[in-house]
Each structure stands twice: as C-alpha cells, then as structure tokens.
C-alpha cells in the first residue's frame, strides 16, 4: 500500500493558483525529493498533506485515510518545518514533553538529543538558541516518534557539516526501516546523495517523476542542478531552486 496518494490536487490562494492538478504516490522505504523553482508549490503540497493548507479540490490519502475526513492520520507523520521557530518561553525539554504528551506516544528523544549534542540546551528557553540548534531540536521533534512517514521541508538549512552528516545517516536508516521520507531541498548534492526519486514541480504541476538518474538522462545533463536549470530554461522560468 502507498503511504501517501495525492490525486488531482488544486490549491488557489486568491488569484494565484499554486497547485494545478498534482498527482503523486509515495511508497514505503523510499526517499522522495520534491524539487522546483521558488514558489512552485513544494511547501504548499507538503502543507496540504499535513492539513496546514486546505486544498481547493482533489483528494489526499495518508496510510489509507482520507485527510479531509479527520485528523487522526497525522499520527503517522513526523514533520520538520522550514523555519524552526517554537514557543519562545518554553525550554527544549518542556517542548519535547509537550509534543510527547499531545501525541500520547512513546518517544525516543534521548537518542536524538545525544546524537545532536543537545543535552546542555535542554533547560534553556528556545528563544536563546541559535538557528542551527533550533534546527536540531526541530529534527528531534520530527524523528523522535516511530512514524510511517517523515516530511522534511529544507531540513539541513542551518546545520553544520557534522549535524548534516548525522541527519543524512538517520534518514537512510529510516528508509531502510521501511519508512517513507519526503523532503524538499535546494542543495542538489544532498538530493543526489539521498533521493531514490525526484518529483519536479513546475507551474503547479508535476513536470517529472522518476529516479535522479532518469531525470539527468532525460535532460542530457551530468548533474541534477544542470538538469533542473535546463528544464526551467525550457519552461521559461529562470528563478532559483
């Protein structure tokens, strides 16, 4: 069974139609990278799946549950937002306990606290943490539960090379454990290193869906970065990825 099925998804913000009939299937044990130029709808697509953005039309199924019918499906998803900003007045430990309490599920937070060296920050309020440390807390919150799906929006922004390496190792471990991982990134080397599958969004539609090597073959380019640049040029979009 697919973990996530997106069928004919449309999302309009006022006059701006961000998603125009997106179809996508995410399978277990697979790392999917969602790529596209700025404002191509990557984050909107993720947020539609998570229920943060309400689709204009279309259907999303997560682990067999229609997401428009209830919120229970969210217990299968671990989410790492793009900007790691949390309640300023809580400490790291209070935040971990809060999310644990709300989910009502066992959490393996100690492992990630150790992995990212967060022990000394546990009693500090989130407002005094640096961007990189916040991102580590963000990762801990997303990874600490045993979920079927992990959705990561620009996960390595702010990470130092050590944290970034730990992060990538964890993602590969999760994949091997049969989890579905969906992520967005503008660092193409990271995508090449991690992704089994690339979904390229352009003008609110899936322009390409396949393996990174097929993506490069199809465009006749040697790297993902060049392949994307070529596709964007052909489509008349010359914005950043």
């Amino acid at each position, binding site marked *: 069974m697919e973990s996530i099925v997106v069928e004919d998804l449309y999302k309009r*913000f006022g006059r701006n139609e961000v998603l125009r009939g997106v179809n996508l299937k995410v399978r277990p044990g697979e790392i999917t990278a969602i790529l596209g130029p700025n404002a191509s709808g990557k984050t909107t697509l993720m*947020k539609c799946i*998570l*229920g*943060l*953005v*309400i689709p204009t039309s279309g259907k999303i199924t997560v682990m067999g549950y229609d997401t428009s019918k209830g*919120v*229970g*499906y*969210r*217990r299968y*998803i671990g*989410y790492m*937002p793009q*900007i790691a*900003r*949390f*309640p*300023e*007045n*809580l400490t790291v430990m*209070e935040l971990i306990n*809060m*999310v644990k*309490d*709300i*989910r009502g599920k066992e959490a393996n937070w100690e492992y990630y606290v150790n992995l990212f060296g967060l022990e000394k920050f546990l009693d500090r309020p989130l407002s005094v943490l640096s961007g990189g440390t916040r991102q580590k807390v963000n990762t801990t*919150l997303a990874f600490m539960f045993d979920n079927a799906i992990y959705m990561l929006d620009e996960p390595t922004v702010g990470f130092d090379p050590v944290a970034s390496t730990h992060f990538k190792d964890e993602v590969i471990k999760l994949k091997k454990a049969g989890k579905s991982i969906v992520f967005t990134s503008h660092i193409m080397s990271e995508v090449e290193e991690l992704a089994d599958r690339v979904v390229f969004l352009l003008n609110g539609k899936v322009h390409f869906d396949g393996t990174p090597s097929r993506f490069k073959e199809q465009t006749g380019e040697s790297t993902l970065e060049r392949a994307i640049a070529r596709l964007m040029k052909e489509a008349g979009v010359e914005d950043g990825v």
Partner: protein
Amino acid sequence: MAFKLFKYEAYNTLRSRFIVGYFLFFLLLTSALSYFSGDISKVIVSLLNIVILFVPLISLVFSSLFFYGTREFTELILVQPVGRKVVYFSKVLGISLPLAISSGAGMGIPLAVFGASPVHTLLLTLSSVYLTLIFSAMAIMFAVISDDRVKGLAMGLAVWIYASVIYDALILFVGMAFYDYPIEGLIILLSILNPVDLARILIVMNLDIAALMGYTGALFVKFVTTVKGYVIIFLTLTLWFVVPLFIGTWFFNRKDF
C-alpha cells in the same frame, strides 16, 4: 486533549514577563490608591476608569501580538492529530485567561485586603475579567482573519476606539437629539450593545454616585440592581465573548498556514 492544549498555551503565556509585570502593575496601583485614599469607593471609581480604557486596549494589543508571534507554535500543534476547533479554543483561552486573571487578581487581592465592599470588588474584577476575555477573543479573531499583523491590530484598535470613545459620543448625541422624548429604554438598550459601557454601568450603578445621575440614572439603577438586570448584563457580556470566539473558529477552520 482540549485541557492538555490549554495547559500548554496558558503555560507559554504565563512564562511571558509581560503577564507578571501586568499583575504587579495592578497590584501596586490598587495598593497605592487604597493606601493613600481615605475613601475606598473613590478607589473603585479610579480603577473603573482604568478597567474600561486600559484593560481592553492592553488585552487587544497583547493578544494580537502574542497570536502573531506564536504562529509557528500554532503550526506545530496543527500537525499533531488534534482538531482545529480544539486548537483554537485552547489558544484563545490560553492567551486570555492568564491575562484576565493577572488583572483581576492584581486588583482583587489588595481591594479585599483594604476592606473594600465585596460586591464592588467582585463586580470590578469580573468586569476586568470579562473585558479581557472579550477584547482578547476579538483581537485573536482579527489576527486569524488577517495575516498582516498591522491590519489585524488596526482592526482591533478600531473596535476599541469605537467602543471606548465614539460610542459614548453617539449615545450622548442620541440623548441630546431626542431630549424631549422618553428614550431611557433606548439608552439602556444602546448601552448594553457595548461591552465597555456594560462594565461601566455595572459598577457605577452600584456606587452611591449613581444618585447624582437624575432620572435616567435612577432607571439604570432600577434595571441593573435587579436579578433580571444582572442576568441580562452577564449574558450579554458572555455573548460578547462567545460571538467573536465562534466567528474566529469559523475562519480558523478554513485558514491556510
């Protein structure tokens, strides 16, 4: 789940230094006024002016800025398996109740210590609590409607100016224009339609100075000091909280984050 979320929202609000400062402000002000003034009912009148002008304004600004400032927190909660209505209710109560309790307790404790009338103390603190809840619910409703924090805050401030300043001028104008007609009932009705006026009437009509307000004053006293009057006033104040809460929920359920 609703209580769990409320607990964390309220805890986050209570950890804000502003809430502590706000409580201390009322505590010190009420203590100082009670200590230096011989007549405790004068203290009630002074505090009343603060409650009807200052409390709604602070509640609006604090709730609006706090809601905008904790948007990521809201997103963090919304990706958990929790319904939006529960998230919104706990958010409104989690922001407004700590604020309401700090102003209510800040005034209520010294008034009780200095021996103010229990009825006056209760009415003043209840008015403060209600005005906080009402204006917080309104501020958060506007913050949900508009993503632009300047616009959201401006909408709230417009309601505050209207309720605190313009509305009284309108009532005065109606009173002057229809001076020759028996419009006391209309004036009572118009006053009920404004929560700030309701709080004012509730307290003033229970003080001795109500006797100085002539025929209309006497009618107000007659209205306010009956069980029916109290029921109408508190029901209306509750409605002033519940209506923005539900309008806000409607928008929150449809909002994109």
